[in-house]
C-alpha cells in the first residue's frame, strides 16, 4: 500500500480553524520570523562563558519551508530554542509575526508560544497517559482552559489529516514510532500556528516513515501556508526544502534558496 495515499486523499486545509489563517493573510507583509543581530552566550560572567550564537540575522516569510543545517555543536538547537521562545537572547531582536519577543513578560511569551509556534521534536514527546486525540487537543485545552466539542472536532480533523483517524482513541504509548510522530505533527498544528519548528523530525524514523512525515509537513505547508523551519542532519531531507540555512560555529555561513526544489515545484 502506498504510504502517502492518505495525504493525497485529504482535502486541503483540513479542519483547521480559519481565524488564524485570515489574520495571517491580513498581515502577509509581516514576516513570520525575524531575527536581528541575535547573540546567545551561556555562563555569562563565569570563567566558562561560551558564546554560542553571534549576530544572527534571519527572516522567514509566511509560507516558507526552510531547512537549518550545520554540524553538531554549531548552535542549531540553541537557535531553535530562541526562536521557540524557550530561551532568551543576550542581544538582538526577535520578532514572531511582528511581535517583539524581548518586550514580553513570561506570561505573554507563553501565550505567544502557544498561539504562534508549533513544535515537532526528534522524539515525539507525546503524553503517554493520553490518547492520540487527547494529545492533539492538549495545546487547545491549555490555551482555552476547559474542554469543548470544537477542540475535539479540530483534533479529530487534524488526526484525519495525518491519516490516523482509526488510531485516535489509542494511547500514545500504544502506537508505532511513525504514527507517534504524525500525532506530534497534528499536535503542532492544533493551534494553527504561523510557524512550525521541527528539530530532526525524522531522526528517529526509518526512511519510509521519515518520508511520510516529511511529505506531511510539505503538504501542510502547501495547503495552509504554515511556515516551517526544520533542523536536520539529513542532507537528503534538506535538499527537499525550499531554502537551506547553514549554521557553522554560531554564524550563518550560507543562506540560499534550494533551486532544485523550486524548479521541480
Amino acid at each position, binding site marked *: 500500500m502506498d504510504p502517502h495515499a492518505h495525504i493525497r486523499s485529504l482535502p486541503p486545509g483540513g479542519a483547521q480553524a480559519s481565524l488564524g489563517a485570515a489574520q495571517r493573510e491580513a498581515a502577509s507583509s509581516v514576516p513570520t520570523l525575524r531575527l536581528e543581530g541575535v547573540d546567545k552566550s551561556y555562563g555569562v560572567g563565569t570563567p566558562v562563558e561560551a558564546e554560542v550564537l553571534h549576530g544572527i540575522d534571519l527572516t522567514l516569510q509566511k509560507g516558507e519551508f526552510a531547512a537549518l543545517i550545520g554540524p553538531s555543536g554549531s548552535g542549531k*538547537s540553541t537557535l531553535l*530554542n530562541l526562536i*521557540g521562545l*524557550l*530561551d532568551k537572547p543576550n542581544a538582538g531582536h526577535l520578532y514572531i509575526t511582528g511581535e517583539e519577543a524581548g518586550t514580553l513578560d*513570561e*506570561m505573554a511569551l*507563553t*501565550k505567544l*508560544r*502557544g*498561539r504562534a509556534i508549533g*513544535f515537532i*521534536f526528534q522524539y515525539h*514527546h507525546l*503524553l*503517554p*497517559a*493520553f490518547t492520540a486525540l487527547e494529545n492533539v487537543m*492538549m*495545546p487547545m*485545552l*491549555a*490555551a*482555552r*482552559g*476547559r*474542554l*469543548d466539542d470544537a477542540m475535539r472536532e479540530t483534533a479529530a480533523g487534524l488526526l484525519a489529516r495525518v491519516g490516523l483517524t482509526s488510531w485516535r482513541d489509542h494511547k500514545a504509548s500504544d502506537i508505532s514510532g511513525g504514527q507517534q510522530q504524525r500525532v506530534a505533527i497534528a*499536535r503542532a498544528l492544533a*493551534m494553527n500556528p504561523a510557524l512550525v519548528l521541527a528539530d530532526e523530525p525524522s531522526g528517529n524514523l526509518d526512511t519510509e516513515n521519515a518520508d511520510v512525515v516529511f511529505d506531511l509537513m510539505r503538504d501542510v505547508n502547501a495547503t495552509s501556508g504554515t511556515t516551517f523551519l526544520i533542523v536536520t542532519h539529513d542532507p537528503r531531507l534538506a535538499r527537499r526544502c525550499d531554502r537551506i540555512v547553514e549554521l557553522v560555529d554560531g554564524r550563518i555561513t550560507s543562506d540560499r534558496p534550494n533551486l532544485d526544489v523550486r524548479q521541480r515545484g
Partner: protein
Amino acid sequence: MNPFARFETIVAFRFMREGLTQTLLIVFGVALGAGVIIFMSALLAGLQANVVRRTLNFQAPIEILAPDQVPRSMREDEPARVAAQVQPRSQQLRSVDQWQKVRADVARIPGVIGVTPVVSGPGFARRGEAIKSVTITGIDIDSYFDVIALPEKIVAGRDDVGPLDIIIGIELARDLGMAVGDKVTVTTAAGIASTLTVIGIFDFGNKGVNERNVYVALRTAQSLLDLPGGASSIAVKVHDPFAAETIAEIIRGGNNLEVDSWIRTNAQFFSAMAAQILANTLIRIFVGLTVALGIASVLVVSVVQKAKEIGILRAMGTARAQVLRVFLIQGAFMGLTGALAGALLAWCFLLLWRGVARAPDGSLLFVVVIEPSLFVIACAGATLVGILAAAIPARRAARLDPAVAIRG
C-alpha cells in the same frame, strides 16, 4: 461548569492514574493517618464529655459559700511578743450573707443559666435499728432543678419534695431497706429530729452520692440544721462548664465570698485532661507531618518522572500557573480521598469500639459521640495538608525550564 473538564484537572487526574500504585499507596497512607486522628479525637472527646457529665450530674459548676471563719489575734499592736501558735478555728455552718442579693446579682452575669440557694449539712438517717450518716441537702425545687438534673435521676417516686418529704439515693434505700412511701427519721448534730416520708429514690450512678446524699425541702433543712432563713451555699450553673472558673472569678471580684468552681475542685481531673489534649495534639501534628511528607515525596518523584512531559506542556503554551495547579490538585485530591477513606475507617473502628468497650455488666464504658463536624474538619484539614505538601513539588514543576526539561 464541570470542574473535570478543566485542563488542570484532566492532566492532574491522568498523571495520578498513570502512577496508580503510587497514588493508591499514598491515599492509603493518608487514610491511616486521618483514621487514627479521627478515632483518637472521638475517643478523647467521648471520654471528656463522659467525665464532665458524670461530675456535673451531682455537682454544680460553681458553688458560692460563706467565707471561712478565721481566728484573729487580740493584740495586733504587738505581734512580735505574742506566742506564734494560732489554732485554726472550727467552722460553723453559716449562711451566705444576704444570699438573696447575691443570688440576684449572680443571675445577671452573662453565661449563668441557673442559680439556686442550698442548705447543706451533716445528719443521720435512722430507720429502726439501722442508722446511716448522710449529707442533708435542702433544695428550692423551683430553681434547684435548673442547676442539678435531679428529676432525670429519679428511679422511683417523684421529685416535688414537700416540707415533710425526703428523696434518698438508691444505695441508702437498700441499706435502710426502704421504698417510696416509707418513713425515715433524720437527726442532726443540733439535736433536731424530724420524721420524713420517702417520696423519691435517685440514682446518680455514683455509689458515694447514692449512699450519702438526701434531698429535703429548703425550709426543712433550714430547721433541721438550725439555719433559719439562711442558705449555706448558692449553686450556680453556667452555659459552658469550661468557663466556670472565669465566671467564678467575676463573682469573687464583687463579693467577700468563697467561690469554688468545679474546675478548681477537680484540679486533678483537669490536669489529666490537659495532658491528654496535649498528647492528642502532638499525635495530630506528627501524623499530619507524616502525611504531608508522604504526599510531598510522591509528588517530588512525580515531578522528576514527568519533567519531560511538563516541559512539553510548557512548550505548547501551558502557563506556569497551570502547571502549578496540576500538582496542587493532585495534593488536594490525595489528601481529601485519603481523609474520606480514613473517616470510613475511623467510623468502623468506633462502631467496633462500641461493641468491645463494655463494663462487666454489659453497659457501655462511655458513650463515644460520633460528631459529623469532626469528619468534616478532618477532611478539610487533610485537603489543606495535601495542598501545602504539594506546594514545593508544584513550584519545582512550574519553574522547570522547558528547553532543559525536553532535552532531558
